[in-house]
């Protein structure tokens, strides 16, 4: 009850402000807009450019930035009370997309991008790479524009692979061999692979294992695909890597712990987000900066389908200044701005950025070049579904994560876990 109290006040205040702002005049691409953002590298990178936008368009921008969870809570409470408190907001479609779209929180953007006046040729809408753009569509409707992309990749120690003559894994099963050789050759000093075990964080890195077996999260009839032998095989492979060749306590690890282990030279490979590059080549915290290589997660019997995750910005359906909001959206995702941001390390969802010769020149080290190539591959081939689709993402991820954690802990077998996930996901969709 204690936690609820502030939200009641916020609700009342927002409801009040909604009535007041409801008296506002006709909207036009001027005036002021509020942008709700998360504390995120993208926000830090774009902030210095905002005065340029204000000068160009005469639209004032109030950028409000909060921690990820706080921003999510705030957006939910605000949108739920149909308030126009903010006009543009950062949103993770793979997480809250379906819920927000079905609740009518997003302004549909198809009309905007199809209108040559609103999205002129210079905006180059077709320049967005397929996977991140697809990720901004919910049930066929475009509800946001991508701003940054990431995906799970493998960071590995080139020196160890060279020293012990370990062949880079060519298919997903060879990961186990590579991990075993690292661990055996170093006498257990270096773990084979640092991998995610924390329940809600796990599906993001588990996805490629699942998809590379040749299965989608859902079967064609919309039921979960965990009743297939391939799914048990994927779980078994992932759990074996984590249990046998992962660090102790792996079930509580996410990117922070994995990157710390890798950067301290205690893991031969790290399977985590491409965003972790900065952590593992940071001279202040990493002792392995000269030995890092980056490669995609290798293919399985069903091909290679990395997970791609994009952040996007969306317009609130309750915005009172949608034209100005669109101007901002268009400016922030324009080819020029994405290139500017790329120089600050923001992985662009636009193909043109990666082809830009000036940008390519900044990839002056082999590791950065490998990173860019891997990320490009992720964007081209990526599957934007981080976890089995459904409205209740946190619960879905917990179901998948907990079941696999039980296999890692040795409490259940992969087959039992697959059955459990199938049953619980089925219950979930049945109750909705």
């Amino acid at each position, binding site marked *: 009850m204690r*936690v609820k109290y502030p939200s009641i006040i916020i609700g009342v205040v927002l409801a009040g402000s909604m009535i007041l702002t409801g008296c506002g005049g006709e909207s036009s691409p001027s005036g002021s807009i509020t942008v709700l953002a998360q504390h995120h590298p993208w926000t830090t990178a774009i902030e210095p450019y905002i005065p340029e936008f204000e000068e160009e368009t005469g639209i004032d921008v109030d950028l409000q930035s909060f921690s990820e969870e706080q921003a999510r809570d705030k957006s939910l409470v605000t949108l739920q009370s149909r308030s126009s408190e903010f006009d543009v907001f950062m949103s993770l479609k793979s997480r809250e997309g379906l*819920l927000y779209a079905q*609740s009518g929180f997003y302004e549909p953007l198809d009309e905007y991008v199809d209108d040559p006046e609103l999205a002129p040729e210079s905006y180059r809408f077709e320049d967005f790479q397929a996977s991140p753009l697809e990720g901004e569509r919910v049930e066929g409707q475009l509800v946001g524009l991508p701003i940054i992309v990431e995906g799970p990749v493998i960071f590995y120690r080139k020196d160890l692979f060279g020293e012990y003559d370990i062949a880079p894994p060519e298919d997903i099963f060879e990961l186990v061999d590579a991990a075993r050789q690292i661990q055996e050759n170093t006498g257990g000093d270096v773990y084979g692979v640092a991998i995610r075990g924390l329940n809600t964080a796990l599906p993001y890195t588990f996805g490629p294992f699942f998809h590379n077996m040749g299965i989608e999260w859902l079967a064609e009839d919309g039921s979960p695909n965990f009743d297939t032998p391939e799914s048990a095989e994927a779980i078994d492979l992932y759990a074996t890597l984590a249990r046998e060749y992962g660090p102790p306590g792996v*079930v*509580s690890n996410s990117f922070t712990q994995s990157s710390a282990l890798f950067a301290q030279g205690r893991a031969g490979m790290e399977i985590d987000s491409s965003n972790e590059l900065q952590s593992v080549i940071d001279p202040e915290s990493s002792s392995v900066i000269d030995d890092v290589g980056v490669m995609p997660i290798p293919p399985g019997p069903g091909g290679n389908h990395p997970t791609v995750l994009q952040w996007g910005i969306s317009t609130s359906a309750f915005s009172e200044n949608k034209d100005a909001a669109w101007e901002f959206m268009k400016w922030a995702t324009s080819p020029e701005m994405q290139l500017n941001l790329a120089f600050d390390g923001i992985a662009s969802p636009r193909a043109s950025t990666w082809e830009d010769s000036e940008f390519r020149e900044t990839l002056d080290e082999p590791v950065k070049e490998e990173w860019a190539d891997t990320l490009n591959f992720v964007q081209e081939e990526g599957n934007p579904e981080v976890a089995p689709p459904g409205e*209740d993402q*946190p619960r879905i991820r917990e179901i998948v994560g907990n079941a696999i954690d039980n296999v890692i802990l040795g409490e259940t077998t992969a087959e039992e876990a697959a059955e459990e996930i199938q049953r619980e996901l089925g219950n979930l969709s049945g109750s909705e």
Partner: protein
Amino acid sequence: MHTNPTRRSQTAKEETGGEDTVSRRPYHQIVARLKKNMPRYLMLGPALLLAALLIVFPVAYAVYLSVSDWSPTGVKDTFVGLSNFERLLQDGLFWNALRVTLTLYFVSLIVETVLGTYLAFLLNREVPGNKIFRALILIPSITAPVAISMMWLLLYDPTLGMANYLLRLAGFTGLEWLGDPGLVVYSLAIVDIWEWTPFMGLIILAGLKDLPADPLEAADIDGATPLQKLWHVYLPLLRPIILVAILLRSVDLLRFFDTIYVMTQGGPVNASTTLNIFAYRQGFQYFDLSYASTAMLALLVVVAIIASCIMILRRRFSYEV
């Protein structure tokens, strides 16, 4: 030593008798009495209003939510009766959360009380610098819990953390402090014990300083050993203040949230999911505020039961003194 039952029932009789007389009084006498007491009511008014706003309203709203079907797009106009409570009682995760909450509660509370009492005796000794020490040991209790949790997260890291380094140095094998479902609750209890034992110690110290000298002198004259003095004189005399300290810690411990939220988020596989974490997840991650309210009402009941038990104990022991 015990209260005289006859005296108690007499007092009770007088009180009810008094009320009977009031209700039989003519109307104008009641008005006169109201007028006489008006300043009292006026002065109490704001406090009562504030209490109503801060306590009654949220609880009432939680009750309302628990019997309705809330969704992110607003409360659907449906009264669902007690179905949320029914669901809660059948929910294995709820019972697991209750078990985790109570384990964490009893383990932390018992150790904190024993160590806190011991600490109070230590701090009571007049040695040079003990005032500085008294201030210093409060640091864990006044540091932000999130900062403490981050620090312990580093200490507990199985590979890079200090805890396992020390264990290995002493010839033991390292532990998976937060990764072992059987161990995680105790690892969290250690953090709480480290954080809150000084607080218990200082409360008990205040009681220790206020103890009457006579019983102690009498014990000395009777030739009691230090252990006998502790068991038969100090502890009975300290019981009321220890119970106050226990009450204060109990309410906080049962709502244990921030440390877990930062360190394990309730994992691995719900092994450290307390009722608070359970309700948080239902409300703010699954957006099921109705079910979360139901769980929180259950926690309210648990807190009320435990607090009442402590109050009853306290009353009994304070009569004995």
